[in-house]
């Protein structure tokens, strides 16, 4: 007898992407629709929560309908509705959570709540077979941390004390006059920049698995101010070289600390996940160092690195197997903890 596939309709609206996906058996991505608001927020140099929430409400229904159509599914074919309920921007989260809850309620299907980072973490399983234990370097616009996943569960070994890596990219990009979002813009500029044009300090925070990026941001700002006070406005080429130096400082610390933590914990695999995992230099540097240390490195394709609903559908499948349903009083939690 052929076993019917379990199809989960997943919804994600944590920040500035409205996304829906249909995922079969937690592996097969049947559809993955993302409506991004990047152009809307670019004029403000960052995500404006109220504007993001308004756009989510307009986008949610068409995005979900498109995800069903792309997957060639009707509501009857769906076994459960999954939604990321935190962490993130509360107004943004509430649109996805309210819609998902009402959909599950109307269809009388189970509702599954997924932690946004569990989604990012699950994204690596879409294209790779990974065995536990493994270490994940979770890097996004809102979080940076090292997460150890063992058979018994996941726990953070360390986190950023201040700015997340993606936040650091955004703030440094703004200082350099580059548009939002900063990560891809700095990456693009850095490709054209000269190596070793300037050296920015690294916050190593020895003895911990934590990160700090606010000092780097200040160092870049001070450097630019000092030059400008002397009337030395950087040229476009110089901006690219400064972007390269800043990117190098971020990627150097992230990759070195991830490899050191993996070696200390005795794990053989590092997973690089989250929006900043799409950064080419971070992938390159971490790959070099992981290889030198005899570690395997896995990361998702860029489309599964940035916020998407496919990853939520993948993560939801484990909860489907455990019949871990959310109740009707599920709320959006901007500071949801993992575990």
């Amino acid at each position, binding site marked *: 007898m052929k076993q019917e596939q379990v199809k989960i309709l997943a919804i994600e609206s944590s920040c500035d992407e409205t996304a829906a996906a249909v995922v079969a058996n937690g592996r097969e991505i049947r559809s993955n629709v993302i409506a991004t608001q990047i152009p809307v927020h670019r*004029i*403000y140099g960052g995500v*404006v929560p*109220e*504007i993001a*929430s*308004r756009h*989510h*409400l*307009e986008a*949610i*229904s*068409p995005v*979900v*309908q498109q995800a069903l159509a792309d997957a060639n599914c009707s*509501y009857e074919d769906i076994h459960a509705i999954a939604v990321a309920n935190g962490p993130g921007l*509360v*107004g943004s989260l*509430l*649109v*996805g*959570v*309210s*819609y*998902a*809850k*009402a*959909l599950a*309620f*109307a*269809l009388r299907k189970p509702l599954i709540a997924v932690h946004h980072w569990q989604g990012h973490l699950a994204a690596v399983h879409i294209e790779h077979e990974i065995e536990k234990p493994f270490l994940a370097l979770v890097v996004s616009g809102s979080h940076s941390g090292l997460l150890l996943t063992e058979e018994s569960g996941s726990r953070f070994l360390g986190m950023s004390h201040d700015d997340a890596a993606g936040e650091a990219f955004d703030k440094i990009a703004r200082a350099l006059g580059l548009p939002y979002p900063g990560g891809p813009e700095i990456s693009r500029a850095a490709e054209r920049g000269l190596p070793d044009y300037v050296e920015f300090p690294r916050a190593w925070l020895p003895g911990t698995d934590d990160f700090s990026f606010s000092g780097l941001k200040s160092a870049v700002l001070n450097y630019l101010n000092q030059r400008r006070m002397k009337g030395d406005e950087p040229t476009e080429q110089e901006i690219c070289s400064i972007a390269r130096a800043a990117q190098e400082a971020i990627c150097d610390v992230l990759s070195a600390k991830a490899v050191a933590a993996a070696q200390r914990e005795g794990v053989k695999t590092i997973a690089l996940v989250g929006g900043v995992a799409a950064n080419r230099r971070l992938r390159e540097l971490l790959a070099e160092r992981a290889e030198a240390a005899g570690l395997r490195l896995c990361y998702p394709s860029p489309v599964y690195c940035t916020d998407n609903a496919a990853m939520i559908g993948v993560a939801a499948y484990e909860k489907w197997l455990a019949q871990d349903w959310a*109740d*009707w*009083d*599920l*709320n*959006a939690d901007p500071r949801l903890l993992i575990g």
Partner: protein
Amino acid sequence: MKLLAIDTSATALSAAIVGEKGLLGEYALNIGKNHSLGLLPLLDSLLKNCGLQLADMDAFAVCIGPGSFTGLRIGLATAKAWGDATGKPLIGISSTDALARAAGQAGYVCPMLDARRDQVYTALYKGGERLWPDLAIAPTELAERLAELEEPVYCLGDGFAPYEEELRQRLGEKLQAIPPERRLVMAPAAAMLALEKYAKQEFTPVEALLPVYLRLSEAEEKRLAAEAAAKGGQA
């Protein structure tokens, strides 16, 4: 024929089911918690006690504001999902219309919703007819406008109590307060208004069901003000 109305636009959360014979059930909560927590458990209980399921409804009505931006989005995202899941029509009801109806007064009625930033969302009605468009204004300005009326005006809504004294100072006896127990709950009135719209087939497609915000986001307001100032400076 059965119709379910929900309201999440102000401090109180409410839901009501109406049929041909009138109101079947109404539930309300005013406990200061996020409506996202209470809405579905409240509905689940209301439907069960009415012996009904969501699928038994012929239409869904929702208050579309003006009101709390976050509250409105919870209600409208919910209604959109029901429209998508069931294919049943959606009916958007103005929150000021719902409050004016709830007042049950033939004279002047002034619904007020808390708009924060020392303003209220408001409008004016007489004999059930709307006289003003929805406005976001300071209570002092509202008092001046209401002072021009020749008859008493009945006030209600979650924006009333915080400014009642201020309004009374200007309006005196002209200010009539709807009793507190009838000031906040909108879903039953919204359901009755929705029945009228249902009869006239005045439905809102899922994608067109959007809140009446009355205001831009603060970031947009600041940007537009800065742009206008820059333009003024050039001229």
